[in-house]
């Protein structure tokens, strides 16, 4: 009888034990506090250009500025009232909007034609985000107000940059205002525009880096006495800038280098097939002639600028590009030789940044490497760059997820990735533990 008892009850008891089996809990969330390591993050200020200001879709808008990479870093640092020169939400003049798609699936963009309306010009102190779109390295120590004719852009091209006045408000140079804030930590990211305008302007004809007719801005010379003999070279200016930073007492720094602008969506989006599919009359496609393709076989041309996609129909309608004698101007294309020039400048600027920063014990955030890593796995057959969760981003326009409508500036997700690259470098160098930005918060699912 005893035998039967066991056999009968064993399975039931097993099942009971099964159901009362040990359970498992969710691990605790990591804390939000952080250790400052060898730095002090109580007063953070950002120096830079459009990337630091938070330009997206070709303009500054409050909606996007609130997630500029320095604003994201400031949030991670726990700085709740971090001042930025915000712009009302239509954006600065020329801000781009996506209004729809053509039947061929091409985006239709609208550029805001109205005026730029700053929101907080009356803010009492200097802004904590001192990033100014289209600012050159030269301007950090020198540009004050457009009225004073002190900016690189004014001296070199004669055009003005109204955003200098929006951010600086006539209260001194970027550096002077930075110093007035008594910062304890500064990120410094300038130098991009010293090559970017040249590249996006098609890089000048036939390997000549200073073809004035085709390049908006020539690249800043590496050394003094270059294209503009009266103006200093990149090397001199970068060392001066860092030496100036070091005059700020009790402050630590991180600088960022310059991404290779030939891998941005602005360069890589428009393909030959897009050019050849433009119709000059219903059902009629013309062969388009390019100034930088004298042989007519297009073997010369590496990139077609994003600006070409909107400009081409108008050019063709005006008869431009329809014959070898009247070709599409060189500012819309970049040849392989021109790309090499751009890459060479970027590499040399970055070498200067690296040695100047290293000599002063300042860590360099390698944004160039970050963009190269993403670009290497982009394009239609690229596997994409993993950002966790199995989500992969590419440099591809719209579908890549990290370049905004202008093809040059990041999306909010892109800026969050940039912010994390800064945090990573800062944490490694200063042995701090600033928490990373939660990328998931900038991905809509």
């Amino acid at each position, binding site marked *: 009888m005893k035998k039967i008892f066991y056999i009968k009850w064993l399975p039931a008891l097993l099942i009971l034990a099964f159901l009362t089996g040990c359970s498992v809990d969710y691990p605790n969330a990591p804390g939000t506090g952080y250790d400052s390591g060898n730095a002090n993050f109580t007063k953070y200020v950002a120096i830079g250009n459009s990337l630091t200001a938070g330009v997206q879709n070709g303009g500054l808008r409050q909606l996007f500025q609130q997630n500029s990479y320095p604003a994201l870093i400031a949030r991670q640092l726990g700085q709740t009232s971090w001042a930025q020169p915000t712009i009302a939400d239509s954006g600065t003049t020329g801000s781009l909007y996506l209004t729809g798609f053509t039947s061929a699936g091409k985006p239709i963009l609208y550029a805001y034609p109205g005026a730029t309306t700053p929101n907080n010009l009356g803010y009492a102190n200097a802004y904590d985000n001192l990033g100014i779109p289209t600012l050159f390295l030269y301007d950090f120590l020198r540009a004050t107000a457009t009225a004073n004719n002190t900016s690189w852009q004014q001296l070199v091209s004669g055009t003005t940059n109204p955003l200098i006045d929006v951010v600086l408000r006539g209260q001194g140079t970027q550096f002077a205002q930075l110093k007035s804030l008594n910062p304890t930590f500064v990120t410094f990211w300038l130098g991009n525009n010293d090559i970017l305008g040249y590249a996006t302007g098609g890089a000048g004809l036939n390997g000549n880096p200073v073809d004035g007719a085709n390049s908006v801005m020539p690249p800043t010379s590496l050394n003094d006495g270059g294209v503009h003999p009266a103006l200093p070279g990149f090397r001199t200016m970068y060392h001066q800038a860092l030496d100036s930073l070091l005059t700020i007492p009790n402050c630590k720094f991180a600088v960022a280098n310059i991404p290779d602008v030939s891998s941005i969506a602005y360069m890589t989006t428009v393909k030959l097939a897009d050019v050849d599919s433009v119709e000059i009359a219903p059902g009629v496609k013309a062969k388009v002639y390019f100034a930088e393709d004298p042989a007519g076989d297009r073997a010369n041309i590496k990139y077609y600028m994003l600006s070409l996609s909107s400009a081409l129909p108008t050019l063709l309608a005006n008869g431009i590009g329809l014959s070898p004698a009247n070709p599409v101007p060189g500012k819309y294309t970049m040849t392989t030789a021109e790309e090499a020039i751009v890459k060479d400048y970027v590499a040399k600027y970055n070498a200067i940044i690296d040695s100047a920063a290293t000599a002063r014990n300042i860590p360099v955030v390698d944004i160039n490497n970050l963009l190269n890593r993403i670009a290497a796995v982009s394009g239609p057959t690229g596997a994409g760059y993993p950002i966790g969760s199995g989500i992969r981003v590419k440099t591809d326009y719209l579908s890549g997820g*990290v370049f905004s409508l202008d093809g040059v500036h990041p999306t909010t997700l892109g800026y969050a990735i940039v912010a994390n690259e800064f945090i990573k470098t800062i944490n490694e160098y200063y042995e701090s533990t600033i928490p990373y930005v939660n990328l998931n918060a900038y991905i809509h699912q």
Partner: protein
Amino acid sequence: MNALLWKFIRTGLCAGLAMLLLADSGRAGGFSIYEQGANATALGSAMVARPWDVTAAFYNPAGLAMYGTPGQWRFYGGIVPVQSMGRFRGMNPSPGADIKDKAVDKFFFPFHMHSAYQINENMAVGLAVATPFGLGTEWDNKNNQYSGRFRSIQADIQSVFITPSFSYKFNDQFSFGAGIDYVYCKVYLERNNPQTFFDGTNTIVYDVAKVKMDGTDNGSFGFNLGAYYKLNEKLSFGAHYKHKIKNDIKGTAKFRQITTGNALVDQRVTDTFNNPLFGGMKQDGNTTIEFPNMAVIGVAYKPIDKLVLDLDYCWVGWKVFKEVVLEFPQNQLTPTSTLEENYRNTYQIRFSAEYQATDKLALRCGYIYDHTPAPTETVNPLLPCADRHDIGLGVGYKFTETFYVDAAYMAVNFMERSTKGRNVDGYNGIYNTHVNLFSLSFGYSFGGK
């Protein structure tokens, strides 16, 4: 309270409860479930130096010839139901500290069947059917909300080892065994595919496709060797080596488009699927999974007549598990997809104690420290591996001289495992896993004498 201590106490309580309920004992783990019987489950598989029952067909075939009587058939079979539970907490930057994910509580029913026939005084043959490698991790992806769904929603590896062996007794002290491992292996993987899209304001990630891959390897071969040396009535030694086995999995990958409502994205995905280079919505999907070399040495000691202690050291050559490469030979767009694993060689320490309380009733317990083979960088939702402390408890009851029943429970306590922000794919967080093994086996013998 110290988390480790709490785990131990909780395990103790659970185990105690299980004992009170008379029932069970057990144990399993990530991708290796070495407990192939209720006695082994209770003993933490610390058995290599005491291959006295027919489970030696699996644990050390050298013991078969030593402990059978000529003409005797011995059988031992049962199940080791496995209950696995997992929780995940995300970390910044991805998937984010606000993320809490839950694995579907799963039950598996691995089975085992060990048998032996004693040919004469010196020779025996054995046959073990066992399932020592297997895993199943399925995450709750209700409404496509699981944060790791683009990595892995479900991963199952199942294998069956059929191991015929031969055992030879040189003398009353030394015996040797060798076996062939024939392995059938089955794999199922499921995940979603994402597509990012910038709509002018936000970067959106759409679930654009469901991908399911299943495949089988109908036969791979390995071998195993065992040795047993009995110094005297109190002290014996054992060793067992199981050679690695490479499973070439051939199967099918099936794709199903998930429409997003975004015409442009949907068109792009349709275009990809319709691209002849893609290889079709149903195409070949192959992979290779290698089971590692294992080498166990152990010593068994009887301090008193009724008590047997066994201590084993097990080396596992997990370094073979470098990556899982999924191959899609018909797909020229993405012909391969690689999951980095980079496992390292590792070890287990196993300890067991068995007390013969009465002529009929044996009480057993065991412990395994299982050092994780997975480096921090590759801990992932497919295999949320961690160091494990396994505690087994069990009973054996002899109803007659030829019929007995074993029951066991094992708590497999995975230590909380954090990727520490270093995951190779940037998917960071903390995993908490717990596995319960419950085992019930029956032994029967006839013939001989």
